[in-house]
């Protein structure tokens, strides 16, 4: 049985349908990316899962129990981190965590131990006496994550957790989330930073205008969107030399004369080539077309030092699946 099951979720605000028939599930220890353009219904879905909103129709089961009918029973199992940090002024890191630990009903030694263990896990120990307002964004994000973990929830709902973080803080957050998943917690992350999601998530859900467009494991999504698009990209790099500019122009001309080449763009010493294949063409046909190009370049005596197909990423899948509409 899945830890979380979302079935036919719908949320209407008057005439506006913010979420429309969304269905997915998540196992314990899994990390699910929730992707969609602004206004797609991501935050609304997360708020429903966090018991802060009620669906117009549909069902959400957490450990087999309806979260809609018994939100009080579901809340101890949930950890929700909204897109804002939610920290207080004039409160130190320890006081902040201690306050929420009290609010979760932890008492005495148990509370102190829990706060200590959360601070250790999130690396906030050295900052325990600092005011939360004096912390960097990354550290405040850790405080917020620490707050989410205080009551040891089974399911974490993180709304745009990497938004506004510098690369180091993002990598550290990623490691923390991976560690949480390894502990058996299920994590749902909504984010715009798709490259981040691809590295963290096991599976993804793509929604637009409140409707679920695609879902599944990240690799499956990439493969599916790649098959659908019939467009393959290659990156050709020429050896840098005195005649680099001239060579580049020749290579561009040569490539454009070849079959299936849709366009060629120059990026420094590299050329980005887009191939458009016939409908129904598979990876074999794409490789054959690439081989033809390489042969043509070598035949022209061009100094090709790199010839690599550009791998599709989550961004490509997202762009292929969505159309940029807003609900």
């Amino acid at each position: 049985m899945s830890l979380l099951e979302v079935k036919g979720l719908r949320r209407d605000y008057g005439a506006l349908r913010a979420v429309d028939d969304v269905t997915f599930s998540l196992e314990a220890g899994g990390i699910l990316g929730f992707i969609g353009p602004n206004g797609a219904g991501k935050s609304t879905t997360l708020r429903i899962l966090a018991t802060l909103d009620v669906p117009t129709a549909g069902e959400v089961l957490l450990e087999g129990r309806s979260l809609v009918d018994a939100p009080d029973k579901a809340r101890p199992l949930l950890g929700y981190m909204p897109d804002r940090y939610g920290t207080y002024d004039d409160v130190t890191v320890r006081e902040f965590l201690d306050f929420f630990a009290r609010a979760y009903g932890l008492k005495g030694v148990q509370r102190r131990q829990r706060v200590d263990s959360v601070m250790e896990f999130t690396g906030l120990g050295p900052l325990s006496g600092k005011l939360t307002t004096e912390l960097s964004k990354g550290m405040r994000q850790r405080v917020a994550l620490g707050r989410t973990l205080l009551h040891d929830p089974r399911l974490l709902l993180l709304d745009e957790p990497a938004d506004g973080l510098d690369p180091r803080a993002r990598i550290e957050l990623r490691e923390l989330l991976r560690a949480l998943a390894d502990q058996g917690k299920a994590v749902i992350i909504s984010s715009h930073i798709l490259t981040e999601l691809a590295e963290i998530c096991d599976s993804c859900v793509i929604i637009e205008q409140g409707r679920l467009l695609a879902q599944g494991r990240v690799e499956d999504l990439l493969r599916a969107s790649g098959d659908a698009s019939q467009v393959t990209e290659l990156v050709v790099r020429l050896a840098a030399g005195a005649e680099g500019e001239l060579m580049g122009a020749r290579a561009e001309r040569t490539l454009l004369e070849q079959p299936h080449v849709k366009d060629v763009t120059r990026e420094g010493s590299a050329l980005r080539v887009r191939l458009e294949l016939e409908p129904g063409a598979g990876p074999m046909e794409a490789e054959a077309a690439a081989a033809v190009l390489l042969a043509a370049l070598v035949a022209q005596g061009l100094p090709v030092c790199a010839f690599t197909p550009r791998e599709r990423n989550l961004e490509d899948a997202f762009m292929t699946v969505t159309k940029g509409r807003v609900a």
Partner: protein
Amino acid sequence: MSTQASPASGASESVPVTAAGASDRWERWGDRLNPLVVKEVRQGLRTRIFWVSFGLLLFACLVLSLVAYADTQGASYSREGRTYFFSFFVCLGVVHFGVIPFNAYRSLAREREDETWVLLLLTGLGPRRILRGKVASFLVQAALYASAVGPFLLFSYFLNGIDLPTILVVLLLGGVWMVFLTLASVCAATLADGRMGRAAVRFALVGVLAVTFFQALTFVFIITQGRGTGFTFDQTFLLGVGVGLWLMLTDGWLLFEASVARLSLMTENYTRHPRRALVVQVLLTFTGTVAVWWYLDFHKDVADVAGIFGTMHLIGTGLFTMSDVDGQARPLRAGTRPWSLFKPGALRGFRLTVLLLLGWALGCSVLLAMSGEATLDWVRNWSRMGMAFTAMALYGVLFLSLALLLGRMPASDRFASPVSVRLLFVALTTLASGLPPLVAVFLGLESGDPLLNLLNPLVGTVNFGRYDYDEPYGTRMTPELLLCVALVTLLAAFAADRVLAERERRAHAS
């Protein structure tokens, strides 16, 4: 952690162990406290505004006491106590009637703006405990301020000119007024969600606090300065103080329950407590009215005052009760019966409002009927005031129904929101009060013409309460006209009820 010294430990270790024991006791005691109190007091004592207010308050009181000392040093007998008591009270009033309520408002408003409110809700604390903690923490801060001014207030007593009962009455009323203002400010923080709405509420609150600050000080000035110069704590004064205290306490409770309801999640039975508080308030107030009426030898003025002000109060509260959203969350629907009037939903709120309004009018009319002896004058008075109460309640129901019909009957939901329905009510009553007299003047009739103003909530009520000895009943309006108003009201209320029932059915079906 051990709280006992081990046998091997020497005397030098006994101190830390005792300290640890005391610390454990503190911690156990702290665990019993509302977490919000701990957090807010901790946070509040770190803010600049607290220390600036506290410092200025102490400084002002110190300067005033030095002035008082210099002023009374040479005099053989001084009676300046009342002046200095009032001066110290003004210093305390700035903080208690201004800083504390506004800070309470700001604290909750910020909690909502920064979305830390939802994080608190998810902890399982619940809006009731959270708000209780917030209010309690501000009362703790108020107590800290009061502790600074307390010795100075006592000092003013020793300057003569003010007696202990006056000091106690002023402090009691001031304390209850401060609690009421804090609760009202907390409730104000729950009123608006949008930026514009919040700005408007903030602006209005500052205005209200400023006005009520001066009103409160004027009242205290009259009491402190008037005592000994003709002003006594007579029966009327004590009755007035009693009514004031009762209203502050019960309306404070109502405001608190309303705030809790507004901050609760849709899935909770959020209307149960405020509606119950309203019904309890109405029942207890009516019981109190009967008691006062009996104590004052069945004086008819008691029924008159209760009838008019009670109905106005119920129209005000009804405006919020009946403009709730349509329907209720799925988990609450199962046990809902037609008489479950405390459960969420505009339909049940509307029905409760109608029942309370008509019940109150009936109760006060019965009270009025039992006042005095059955003479012709008594019959005239009873019929005119009884009709005025009933008309007022009927107008209330009529315009509440019309606001609901206009807001919620159209297919589009443009004016269906609670705020829109309330604004529609205000617009409708304003129009209905202002337009008929203008039309009457335009047609060359008397502005208060009974027929043209039959559905005018203001002039109509006044007309129903007027004597006219040329008429057979001795009143300006006849019972037949009241029946007309009742029929129109019945029609409007029935239509509003059906519209709300249909909307609830649709909300539950989707």
